[in-house]
């Protein structure tokens, strides 16, 4: 168990509305190894962003973390005080949010913005090769201004930008460059986990490839695990090692990326993969039939059964929990064995 860098156990996040509780994340459990790249996919409203925000304890009312545990490197995240949690953000868990490039302050130079977080977290270091030594406590005293500047320039070089970018304002940079600045910020304190929530959804394909490859490179250098949130199965195939498929607030399949693309076990994962248009052959252009359920009026039994092409009476009656059906392959479906005969 200790080999896992992040452990999430029975996490539940509900939004309390006048019409009842919306179960945006319902009993989700998964583990991440140190340095692992994990993809979280699902349609809009499946709860993937709520899930990662809960890891950062950034759920705002009417949302509330109902129950569950999150452990990061043996530290119980849910038990931390507000101040300890504030220190853990960026230093322990960093976020590259959707469209975070638009979150840069337009009237402040890039350098200031990179340094801000480091200063706030009392980024400490002894003299010399400043940026190679990292501690999050105050023991070594705060870094000198010069060392912080050097560190900022070093961070920019790491994400493939010119050090001169430090002196620029956000409007002087392209979207891809801004997104790389955000990645530089995310790795500035060598976090153990980087959460990337649709980091490239606003970028062109060529720039997307550059940004994702940059993220992969720095993540490997820093040794951080990554959770990539998105709905682009193509991007998942290119970037992550393991995929978790979310549907209506629940994980319905968690499998290594090659396995899930070769043979998805959950019918929903199958449909998601089939709905990716191909560059090789012209498809029928069919999406997934039906709509995701309203989280206020959830169907009985398996939440996917009204849209599932294989659904039986048993599916409407009872829900199947996520279980390991093959080594490292977890799926929540009654029909795994009947659909996949040669199991």
């Amino acid at each position, binding site marked *: 168990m200790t080999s896992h860098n992040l452990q999430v156990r029975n996490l539940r996040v509900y939004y309390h509305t006048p019409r009842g509780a919306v179960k945006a994340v319902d009993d989700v459990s998964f583990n991440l190894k140190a340095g692992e790249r994990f993809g979280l996919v699902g*349609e*809009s409203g499946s709860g993937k962003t709520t899930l990662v925000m809960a890891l950062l304890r950034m759920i705002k009312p009417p949302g509330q973390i109902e129950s569950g545990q999150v452990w990061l490197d043996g530290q119980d995240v849910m038990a931390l005080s507000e101040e300890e949690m504030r220190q853990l953000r960026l230093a322990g868990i960093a976020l590259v949010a959707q469209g975070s490039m638009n979150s840069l302050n337009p009237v402040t130079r890039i350098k200031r913005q990179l340094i801000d977080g480091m200063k706030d977290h009392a980024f400490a270091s002894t003299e010399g090769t400043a940026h190679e030594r990292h501690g999050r406590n105050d023991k070594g005293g705060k870094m000198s201004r010069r060392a912080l500047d050097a560190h900022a320039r070093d961070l920019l070089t790491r994400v*493939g930008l010119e050090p001169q970018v430090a002196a620029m304002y956000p409007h002087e940079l*392209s*979207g891809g460059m801004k997104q790389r600045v955000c990645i530089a910020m995310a790795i500035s304190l060598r976090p153990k986990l980087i959460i990337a929530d649709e980091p490239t959804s606003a970028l*062109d*394909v*060529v*720039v*997307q*490839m*550059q940004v994702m*490859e940059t993220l992969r490179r720095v993540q490997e250098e820093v040794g951080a695990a990554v959770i990539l949130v998105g*709905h*682009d*199965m*193509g*991007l*998942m*195939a*290119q*970037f992550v090692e393991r995929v978790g498929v979310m549907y209506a607030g629940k994980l319905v399949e968690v499998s290594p*990326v*090659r396995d899930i*693309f070769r043979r998805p076990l959950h019918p929903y994962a199958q*449909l*998601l*993969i089939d*709905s*990716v*248009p*191909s*560059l090789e052959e*012209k*498809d*029928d*252009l*069919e*999406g*997934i039939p039906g*709509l*995701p359920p309203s989280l206020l009026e959830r169907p009985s039994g398996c939440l996917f059964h009204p849209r599932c092409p294989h659904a039986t009476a048993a599916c409407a009656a009872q829900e199947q929990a996520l279980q390991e059906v093959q080594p490292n392959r977890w799926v929540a479906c009654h029909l795994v064995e009947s659909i996949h005969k040669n199991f």
Partner: protein
Amino acid sequence: MSALLEVQHITKIFGGGLFSRSRTVALENFSLAIDSEPPSITAVVGESGSGKTTLARILLGLETPTEGQVLYQGKNLRALSDAEWHTFRRDVQVIFQDPFEVYNPFYKVDHVLTTPIAKFGLAKSRQERQALIEEVLHAVGLRPENTLGRRPHQLSGGQRQRIMVARALLLRPRLIVADEPVSMIDASLRATVLGNLRQLNEEFGISVLYITHDLTTAYQISENIIVMYAGSVAEAGDVDLVVQRPQHPYTQLLIGSVPQPDPDRRWNIEAMAASSALPTRENTCCKFVKRCPHAMPKCAESAPPLFQTDQHRLAACYLHEESPSISAEDMVSVFVGRGDNARA
């Protein structure tokens, strides 16, 4: 016979006024003719800043080109009479990128369907209006009972965008300009909206100009494709040829960057190093020269014309200069559908 909608040698420059030092050439000497017979689907593909949205806005009459003209049935868009303008507004419909912004949250979604009916006097009675609305909703695969009477926020992005397709269909236009219609909706819902566009083309004989940054969806629905780079055409022609065997280095870079849903087929990382430079916006050289892995001295000296490398394909690249060159306004003559008709 003149084309339904045509742009001739248009150039659009933003900025560059008397006191401004910066000017951006968004579109340069671009020509395109769109016929309504036979109905076709043409894709315009390019990254941010390639001029594709400027082209859409000029075609719709929302923007005036700096040079060149827009012709609707052979007549300059600026010289149309009120009556002709009215027909133009009916013949040419648009579907915008953002299915959230186009709805007024205070109205029910019915509003976007009843307004054009009233504006163009399509129905004489309430029943007739209802029948029309139900017909177009069915055509795009929506159930009227689950759609009408709702507020925009009660519907998904995909549903809202399908209502926009239904609205366009209501007017039985001859051309739909769809500017990134699926880029803001879930991947799993994209196929349905694209399927609707293809259906409009096949069943109702409506031509579609599909503007996108996404090569994959362009490949899926169009017959011909125009790959734009920094305001100029890089490659154009039969979509199968362009996507399966791209000849312009820019098209090759684009296709290599598409994330394939297959973990064993990695995207083309080698192309990355060369690809970070910004496009050159001078018209005295190839705009791709700084990013091109095959750049030759010639490429920096003059802009390449369109070379016809196949019966149905053009590439603006000196790597193909042994092929005959063709002038920009004749681009569509190599398109699939048009050339075939001419011979028949």
